[in-house]
């Protein structure tokens, strides 16, 4: 008996190969996506961990203070493995005619903390250039760049190209995580040379690496207390280090995708399995009755119908896990290659593959469980009578809620009520649409959010086209010279200084920017707030637990502390700056150190930037719009990503709707035959079924939109921190287009079922019903 049932199972699957294949493919995609992306995530984490270990990454960086004496004190603290001190200075760099913001970092020949990985050239005999900077300008060992030191532009010969764990992502600071391309570069030079180049502009940093088994949290707290005693301005943990924080946010998002997307596919597969098998159980009621009457146990029947899901889960799961494992290495290579992460770890994780296959198997079984249990509950005597129990009837849910619907022509009422006839199947279809819509809106939401926020950042917030740094104070004459450059429409002096914001709850290191209240270079909802105190970013409001009017201390360079009040908050997508008036900073001794420039409409950007760089007192020019242009250049890639997700979502929705519609038609062949026998045309019957399908799709869209919006919002929130503020943004057309896509999929998915409808042999159905 069991052997025969096994044979029946295989033949049944062969007979329903369309639906079975669709489900197996969905399970395959779910398992493959999980294995590939989760393994890639694990590889990325392992790659970072390897970089941290091999390059002896600092656990804590203490900024400012009495560096050398703090370093000596630090070496005596319990749990410390190594301590290094260094000089760091932000100094302009010049490569040919290009002038950009630079950072000169002092380094020992063979440091015990924050080692550098040599990519090419030599460690000695010159400066070591960070790989992203080298890549932007195609720099090679032996070439010369210039740095603006105390004595003007100084040549630096490049000895080698290096990777640093601190610049795996070339973030300038937590407020400037996404510097535009060719706007920022890092150069490592011997410590004594760095000290000379930096002069008084240099910042002393103490790098601390804890012993392998040290309690990191306790040690960090001890050091933070110690750093305060030595007047340090900031302590930065490895997790808060700008590059690491940005990459970790990205990788966390990657992990969420690695779980979310496969979950959607596996859920869809479970639903489709349930629909397919419920139909089979219903069709085989007489057979089940006969088997039960012949002595088959309930357990045997459960096992038989459960095995449909298990076979599909096994087929899709094993193939998916294998394909995913193969894709994981490629995915890791692409990701680490794109980010330029050295020491990439690419290894197979059989555990992930096993989990992926196990998930698929479990999902197959889960989908089959309810129908299998239903089969085991069939009463033999009733089932063998052959007539399936008819539904109880009654007005549809829609008619109950909207009574006028009950007065619609009968064919419309028939459509509404048919939806509630097989509630589980209808619910599966609606859920399938919800899942597909979620997939689409999460992917599309990423694109829209990035696009809208960049447009807000570079349209409403940052209204300048370029940021110019001079080699001296910003004078009225310098401003006039800049305004005279062809293509420049306006220029305005501004100030940016490092600051640590201190409230009674916490402290936060950022940059304080000074603007004149009538500024045209930065968008403020209430520019007069600049004169009343300090405007803060939203992230610092949450962190420091401050409200408007609360007192706040500003720890400025040189140890100066200014007591002020919070005059308001700004909501900006990138960074968490603090703002005050230019005059206030001048009063505190900080003269304007940058000129913000806006170009004339239609000006040649390249020529205007070159014109600015040619001014003798200009030290660095940053093309502020570079990031936006870079994003627009990569828009094709974003669309490819969204397109891929659309295809996946369409597949997912197709599987559910195709399975559901096929079951619907198969189950209603007698009803269809009756209508056809009484003269109703095939086209009319098809229209009734199509209307049901489209209505269910629309219901799914109605339910799915808020669900998908919430999931997409939560997903984007995972990317939000004080570095970025990624509140979900959806363009008005996006939900409409997503809905239209799903309606198109619905119409497509019903085609096989409608073809089957045409193939219903009326005579045969009547003959078989007649016995």
């Amino acid at each position, binding site marked *: 008996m069991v052997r025969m049932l096994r044979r029946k199972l295989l033949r049944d699957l062969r007979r329903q190969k369309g639906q079975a294949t669709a489900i197996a493919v969905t399970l395959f995609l779910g398992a493959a996506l999980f294995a590939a992306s989760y393994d890639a995530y694990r590889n990325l984490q392992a790659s970072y961990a390897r970089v941290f270990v091999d390059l002896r990454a600092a656990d804590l960086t203490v900024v400012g203070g009495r560096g050398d004496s703090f370093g000596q004190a630090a070496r005596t603290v319990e749990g410390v493995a190594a301590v290094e001190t260094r000089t760091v200075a932000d100094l302009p760099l010049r490569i040919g005619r290009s002038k950009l913001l630079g950072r000169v970092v002092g380094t020992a020949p063979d440091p015990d903390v924050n080692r550098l990985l040599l990519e090419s050239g030599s460690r000695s005999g010159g400066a070591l250039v960070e790989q992203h900077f080298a890549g932007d300008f195609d720099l090679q060992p032996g070439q010369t760049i210039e740095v603006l030191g105390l004595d003007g532009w100084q040549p630096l010969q490049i000895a080698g190209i290096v990777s640093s764990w601190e610049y795996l992502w070339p973030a300038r600071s937590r407020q400037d995580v996404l510097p535009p391309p060719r706007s920022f570069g890092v150069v490592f030079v011997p410590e004594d040379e760095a000290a000379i180049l930096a002069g008084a502009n240099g910042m002393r940093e103490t790098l601390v690496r804890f012993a392998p088994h040290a309690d990191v949290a306790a040690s960090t707290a001890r050091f933070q207390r110690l750093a305060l005693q030595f007047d340090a301005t900031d302590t930065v943990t490895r997790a808060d280090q700008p590059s690491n924080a940005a990459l970790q946010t990205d990788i966390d998002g990657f992990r969420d995708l690695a779980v979310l997307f496969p979950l959607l596919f596996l859920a869809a597969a479970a639903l489709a399995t349930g629909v397919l098998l419920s139909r089979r159980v219903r069709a085989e009621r007489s057979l089940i009755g006969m088997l039960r009457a012949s002595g088959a146990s309930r357990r045997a029947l459960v096992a038989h119908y459960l095995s449909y899901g298990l076979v599909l889960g096994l087929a899709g799961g094993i193939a998916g896990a294998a394909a995913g494992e193969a894709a994981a290495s490629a995915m890791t290579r692409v990701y680490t290659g794109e980010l330029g992460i050295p020491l990439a770890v690419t290894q197979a994780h059989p555990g992930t593959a096993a989990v992926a296959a196990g998930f698929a198997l479990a999902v197959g079984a889960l989908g089959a469980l309810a129908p299998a249990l239903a089969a085991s509950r069939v009463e033999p005597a009733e089932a063998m009578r052959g007539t399936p129990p008819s539904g109880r009837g009654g007005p549809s849910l829609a008619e109950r809620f909207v009574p006028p619907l009950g007065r619609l022509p009968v064919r419309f009422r028939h459509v509404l009520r048919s939806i509630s006839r097989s509630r589980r199947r209808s619910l599966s279809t609606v859920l399938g649409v919800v899942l597909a819509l979620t997939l689409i809106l999460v992917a599309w939401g990423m694109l829209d959010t990035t696009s809208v926020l960049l447009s807000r950042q570079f349209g409403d917030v940052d209204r300048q086209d370029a940021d110019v740094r001079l080699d001296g104070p910003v004078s009225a004459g310098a401003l006039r010279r800049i305004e005279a450059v062809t293509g420049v429409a306006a220029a305005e002096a501004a100030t940016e200084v490092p600051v640590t914001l201190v409230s009674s709850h916490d402290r936060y290191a950022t940059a304080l920017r000074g603007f004149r209240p009538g500024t045209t270079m930065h968008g403020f909802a209430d520019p007069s707030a600049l004169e009343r105190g300090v405007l803060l970013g939203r992230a610092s409001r949450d962190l420091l637990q401050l409200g408007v009017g609360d007192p706040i201390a500003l720890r400025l360079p040189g140890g100066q502390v200014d007591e002020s009040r919070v005059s308001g908050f700004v909501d900006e997508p990138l960074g968490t700056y603090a703002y005050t008036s230019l005059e206030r900073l001048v009063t505190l001794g900080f003269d304007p150190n940058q000129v913000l420039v806006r170009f004339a409409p239609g000006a040649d950007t390249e020529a205007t930037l070159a014109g600015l760089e040619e001014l003798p007192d200009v030290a660095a020019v940053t093309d502020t719009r570079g990031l936006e242009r870079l994003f627009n250049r990569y828009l094709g890639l974003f669309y490819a990503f969204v397109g891929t997700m659309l295809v996946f979502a369409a597949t997912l929705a197709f599987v559910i709707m195709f399975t559901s519609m096929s079951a619907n038609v198969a189950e209603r062949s007698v009803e269809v035959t009756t209508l056809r026998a009484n003269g109703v045309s095939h086209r009319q019957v098809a229209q009734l079924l199509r209307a049901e399908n489209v209505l269910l799709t629309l219901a799914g869209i109605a339910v799915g939109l808020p669900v998908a919006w919430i999931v997409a919002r939560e997903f984007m929130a995972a990317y939000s921190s004080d570095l970025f503020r990624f509140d979900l943004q959806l363009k008005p057309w996006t939900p409409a287009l997503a809905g239209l896509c799903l309606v198109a999929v619905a119409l497509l998915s019903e085609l096989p079922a409608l073809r089957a409808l045409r193939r219903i042999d009326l005579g045969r159905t*009547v003959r078989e019903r007649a016995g």
Partner: protein
Amino acid sequence: MSPATPAVPEPVAVLSDLGKTYGEGASAVEALRAASLSIDRGELVVVLGPSGSGKTTLLNLIGALERPSRGTLVVVGRELETLDEGERTSFRREQVGFVFQFFNLVPSLTALENVALVLELTGRDDVERRATHALEAVGLGDRLDHFPAQLSGGEQQRVAIARAVAKDPALVLCDEPTGALDLETGRLVLEELRRLNREDGRTVLMVTHNSAIAAMADRVVRMRSGEIVAVERNEHPVEASQVSW
């Protein structure tokens, strides 16, 4: 009650050497062989035969649900073997009403809605009135808003009859209409079919394996192994209430 059969017989369906084969080659099954028969307007004809004798195939052919493999078939003046799919649908829409053994009602629609659905889809006007009238005619005037699950088997079959006749077809084709009913309920259904035939003058063709039902027919067509083996005129058909099995 006097029969509404016209004085001069007028054929509604004429079958000549009609044959139907399912499948091909070795697996071919000849379900109907050289069947010739003429059914007159207003007749109540019972096709009697055991399971597999070809009676449902004969019914399907006359109702244009299937195409004959051989021979000619003229129903209500139309040569069915020459009609395309659209014309066959049209033919069924205008000329034929089907009643099946298992009623085949839509469970989510009331009795009235079940009848109205077919009327609506076949383009009839005054749907509600016609459906109500058809249901009242079969004695279900007080069951209009009942769903199939709230009706007995006999009532469900009468709804199916109302559905078949509401569009006013020339021919009512019944496939084992009492097959799923007990004696009492079955008699009620037979009485209804008889009434349709006698009072409304409808031509009724009923296939059954229940030989007792033959007693109420005007003519009995006996089939065996795909062949019409006898056609007998019943000079004294009994009332449906007298049929017993």
